[in-house]
């Protein structure tokens, strides 16, 4: 199990393509050991250049590419939110990053479906 949101999403995208770690690393022209560490959480914040090569190698869609860019800069993001966003394809990359960076006063935390719903409701109240 990946320890970071980034690793979780990288592994998901690679497995969806039925590629091996070496396949992706070769396509991205990066060290496969480094790529392995990104997936398993040993490394968590690749440079923009390296991430761009990985995104290209994985042929990630625009939504997933945006999520990867966000996760590379926010390694503390909960993997459970990444998992939820992968299941619910209606969650946009902006909604994903809004939910990931949400902060709360008090001890109560909404679950992720409720949090996404709240983000949408608050944004719909604009104007």
């Amino acid at each position, binding site marked *: 199990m990946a320890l970071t949101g980034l690793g979780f999403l990288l592994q998901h995208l690679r497995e969806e393509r039925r590629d091996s770690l070496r396949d992706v690393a070769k396509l991205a022209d990066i060290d496969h050991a480094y790529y392995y560490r990104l997936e398993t959480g040993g490394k968590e914040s690749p440079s923009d250049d390296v991430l761009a090569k990985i995104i290209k190698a994985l042929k990630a869609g625009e939504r997933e590419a945006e999520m990867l860019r966000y996760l590379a800069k926010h390694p*503390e993001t909960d993997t459970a939110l990444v998992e939820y966003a992968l299941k619910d394809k209606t969650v946009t990359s902006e909604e994903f990053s809004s939910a990931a960076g949400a*902060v*709360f*006063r008090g*001890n109560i*935390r909404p679950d992720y479906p409720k949090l996404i719903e*709240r983000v949408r409701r608050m944004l719909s*109240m604009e104007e």
Partner: protein
Amino acid sequence: MAMDEFSVIMEARKIVRAVNPTAIPAPVEAYVERVGAILKIDMSLADNEPGWSFDHKGKKYICVNGKDSPERQRFTICHELAHIVLGLPSEHQEVPSSSYVKRAQAEIYCDIFAAELLLPFGLFRPLADKAEISLVSIDALANRFNVSFMAAGSRFAAVLKAPCAFVFSEKGKVRYGVRSTALRDAGAWIAPRIEIPQGSLSAKLRGGVACDGPEEIEADEWFQHWERGGTLLEEARHLDRFDQTLTLLWFEDEVPPPKRGTGRDTEIEEDEDVLLKELDGVLPWPGKKRRR
């Protein structure tokens, strides 16, 4: 730079300076505008959800529970402003609300920040210093600044020149104590999670005994490892519904009792040989063995 209480206060005071509130209560909307956030009133939040904030395409949104009291809403807004300004995240998972669980440092910093905005030092301290030390004074300040009694009480003790402390206890145990600088410098320490002292007015109130006005108590009943002696005045309020006790402690004198000399200190003071020589204008250096 690593974050600490001092840097949090400095960040909050930057905003207070920029907004420069001259009227009381402090203008929360002006703080929100200064930070560039968008305020939303959320009526769908549960009673125990004061508020939250998020970022969307670079815009900062603060959502506050519209069913909360105006005082609580104001504090929540400033707490969320702290998250934005200080860049502090909050725990993803639900946090147990037990009294024994230590609060996250980020949340404590955000509360300190909020208190600085709502009770600006320059406006609050002169009024606090002029007021009589009492719970009634804290009530009056809370009303005037449109904040909760708890927020006003904590701030009252923190800014007062006199030796004073405000203690919040829950279910018979101290959760936290805020002390004035004079008490902190004197080493008066109220340990969190200790039982409310048995002989205290606070314990009596919690036990259902009616009390009228402040009572005297030995300082070492409240302060840990306190060797200065002295008698504190204690005033308290117990909220039966939540089993919470709010305690105000202070020394009647402007300064805490002086440090009592231990046996060893006294010996040293009496031994003239270990004291520094009286200044005579002759420099003790360079010595005779000065290197050329």
